[in-house]
């Protein structure tokens, strides 16, 4: 018997680990990813591969600099997942350097500067997306209408490479605006929703994903399915998605009832702008969300509230990345104040008052 460390129990462990968890998240994202690649063709596939490979490369470099073992940390799949999530939130035909810069920012600044896995305050993919959006607004808002792979008129493999590497411009005819972008533009021209939405918003098409959007946010239904699988397998907890989507839908409903011309309904809010992607896959990032159940409910509700506020009254049509980053910053505070109640103590941490047990006369049993 040589194994004497660690000496205290438990001497058994639940199956699974970090790698399994990350693996499931990636697996749950695959249908939506595959659909996004199909919908936006070769340039989208190029962008996806570049982002993921760049994320892995930056992870290896960072680990080397930090003098940490590369294999176990790379095998946990977190860098792969960060790259994938970032790619899914980029405009599918964005140039290669957007992908590389984004991946570098996410891994180096978003993660390793804080101390690596588990130490980062903000979701790396969202941090990178915000940085890119602020720095390169043009590239980050050039959306294309779906150009399915192998379809008539969509770019082939060579043309795809040319688009990704900036050798060919994106034809104007192929660009479009997202539905949230359209409504905001409409408001600036004093057009009500009844005038802007027809033609750009069809709930069915929107839910299925046949719309100008980032690569992964399109198919709300596939994302929802993947998210439900994760929930059922207890990879993610139910609190954040339920609180976030619930708050978003609730606010949208209330304001729609007040003025349907000015405020879009809950359906549009839930299935556009990557709400599903964020609710199930990004806000649920364990590192950057609170660790208690009540904390997660508040965190989710906060995300939902901020998304609605930014979309409705903010300068950007799109609010998810900002909302999540802001709530990430609040997560440590939430964890500090919303601790669970300890057994035998009040919420304040004082010992409970001993409950006066019924002081009846003790019954003495006399029987041979």
């Amino acid at each position: 018997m040589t194994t004497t460390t660690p000496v205290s129990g438990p001497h058994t462990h639940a199956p699974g680990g970090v790698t399994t968890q990350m693996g499931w998240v990636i697996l749950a994202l695959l249908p939506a990813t595959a659909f996004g690649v199909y919908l936006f063709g070769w340039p989208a596939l190029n962008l996806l591969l570049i982002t993921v490979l760049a994320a892995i490369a930056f992870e290896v470099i960072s680990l080397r600099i930090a003098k940490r073992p590369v294999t176990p940390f790379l095998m946990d799949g977190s860098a792969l997942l960060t790259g994938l999530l970032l790619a899914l939130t980029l405009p599918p035909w964005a140039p290669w350097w957007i992908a590389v810069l984004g991946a570098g920012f996410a891994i180096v600044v978003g993660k390793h500067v804080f101390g690596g896995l588990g130490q980062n305050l903000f979701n790396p993919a969202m941090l990178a997306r915000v940085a890119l959006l602020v720095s390169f607004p043009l590239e980050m808002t050039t959306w294309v209408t779906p150009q399915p792979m192998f379809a008539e008129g969509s770019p082939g493999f060579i043309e795809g490479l040319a688009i990704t590497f900036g050798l060919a411009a994106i034809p104007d005819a192929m660009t479009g605006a997202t539905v949230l972008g359209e409504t905001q533009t409409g408001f600036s021209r004093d057009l009500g929703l009844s005038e802007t939405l027809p033609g750009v918003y069809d709930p069915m098409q929107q839910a299925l994903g046949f719309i100008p959007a980032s690569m992964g946010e399109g198919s709300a239904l596939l994302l929802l399915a993947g998210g439900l699988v994760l929930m059922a397998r207890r990879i993610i907890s139910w609190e954040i998605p339920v609180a976030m989507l619930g708050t978003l839908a609730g606010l949208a409903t209330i304001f729609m009832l007040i003025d349907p011309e000015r405020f879009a309904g809950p359906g549009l809010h839930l299935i556009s702008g990557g709400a599903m992607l964020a609710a199930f896959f990004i806000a649920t990032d364990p590192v950057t969300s609170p660790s208690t159940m009540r904390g997660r409910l508040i965190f989710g509700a906060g995300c939902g509230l901020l998304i609605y506020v930014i979309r409705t009254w903010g300068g950007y049509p799109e609010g998810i990345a900002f909302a999540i980053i802001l709530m990430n910053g609040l997560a440590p505070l939430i964890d500090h104040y919303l601790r669970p109640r300890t057994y035998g103590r009040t919420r304040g941490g004082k010992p409970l008052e001993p409950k006066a047990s019924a002081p009846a006369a003790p019954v003495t049993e006399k029987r041979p």
Partner: protein
Amino acid sequence: MLSFLFKRRAFQGGVHPEDRKQATSHLPIQTLPLPERLYVPVQQHIGAAAQPRVQTGQKVLKGEMIATGSGPVSAAVHAPTSGTVVAVEPHPAPHPSGLPVQTIVIEPDGDDRWVDEPEPEHALNLEPEVIAQRVAEAGVVGMGGATFPAAIKLNLGSRHTIDTLVINGSECEPYLTCDDRLMRERTQEVIDGVRIMRHALGARHTLIVLEDNKPEALAALQEHLYEMDHLEAISVPTRYPMGSEKHMIKAVTGREIPAGKLGADIGVIVHNVGTAYAVHRAVRMRRPLVSRIVTVGGGAVQRPANLQVPLGTRVEELLAYCGGTRETPARLLMGGPMMGQIMPHAQVPVVKGTNGVIALTAAEINIDDPMPCIRCGRCVAACPCGLMPLEMASRIRSEDMDGAAAYGLMDCVACGSCSYVCPSHIPLVQYFQHAKGVLADRREQQRRQEELKELAQQRRARQEAEAKAKAEAAARKKAEREAKKRAQQAKAKEKPAPAKDNEKAEA
């Protein structure tokens, strides 16, 4: 998927480890043949070690007291069989350190002859104090593994009003089936023990509590119970750590033990079913605790079994009786896999608290290198005490023990639910034990420092008093000397000195 909304939970948190009891739950209790030597430690319980009363070469009979309890918290030890004491010397104890404890080594003579043949006692006519005394004399301790002397907990009825006696038959640790078999095979004896304990405590309600994975034992108990007796056998959901006193009380009475208090303070006492059986043997049959039931299990054991084992039998004998091991066990444990302790080797004896000897394979322990915490909060959800293990661990990592204590370190019962679910395989319990040790050391040091300070103060006061006394004595002597001198001078001059002035100056 929405079931979590409707299920009322017995207690917050907890985990569902695979129970792996199927290997032994259907196997009747077998009696292990007497080994060639028995190694009976004098310390098999929480509290002070017992004092050996036998010498090398002395003949002993089964049930003879060979070591007496010393101090308020202690337990006597009895000869597990008849034979000769061949040594009273230190031997390795069943503890991860393998440090030796004083052990009485007995060579059985094979007769297995009892010291006396007493008549069964009319136990329920005895006074509560007498019952507690008999239990103490029989060396009965908490048989669930805690090994706290049982008599002390049976005596609490005189100082507290106990309204509920809870008999813990949950056996929530994976692999273990010794309590399950005991309840099934010796049902009446267990119930008799429960009645005796209830009588001693004066409890109004008594509940025998099983996890719902033991329907046969529950049926057996219920068959022997009748209504109007205020003695019920009930099942609770299977969830670890149901067997923890705090959580069992919460699950069956809805009450919580306030921090820093005992179950008796809220009128509830918890005893293990194995203890109930031992109390029946001790009080009704007047037999001391000399053997116990042990589950030998784990994937590395050839033929798992439930064995009735004389105390002091070495673990290797149990393993040999079960056909040895299939492969070198990755961990050899005394107790269950959640809270059991690693044994340094198989040459340690079975003691009063040994409910299982579990030899686990590498696949069963599923150990992995620890990775950084990803703050997933699973430990928070799993903690049955409502703590945040991840926060405590991160503070302990940076040696901030007070920070960990502020997060409730001292409320941790070390059940291991957090480590069990941690996807990063962080040995959280290890951290907490370490921190508790450091804090205990610190308290001890502080206590010593205060003691020293007090001693120093006393010394200073004493020295001052002495100095003062010396000074006074010196002043007195001086005054006497001068008075003498003056008297002599006066004599020499033969005329009275101006004594008045002199005295004034001196004063």
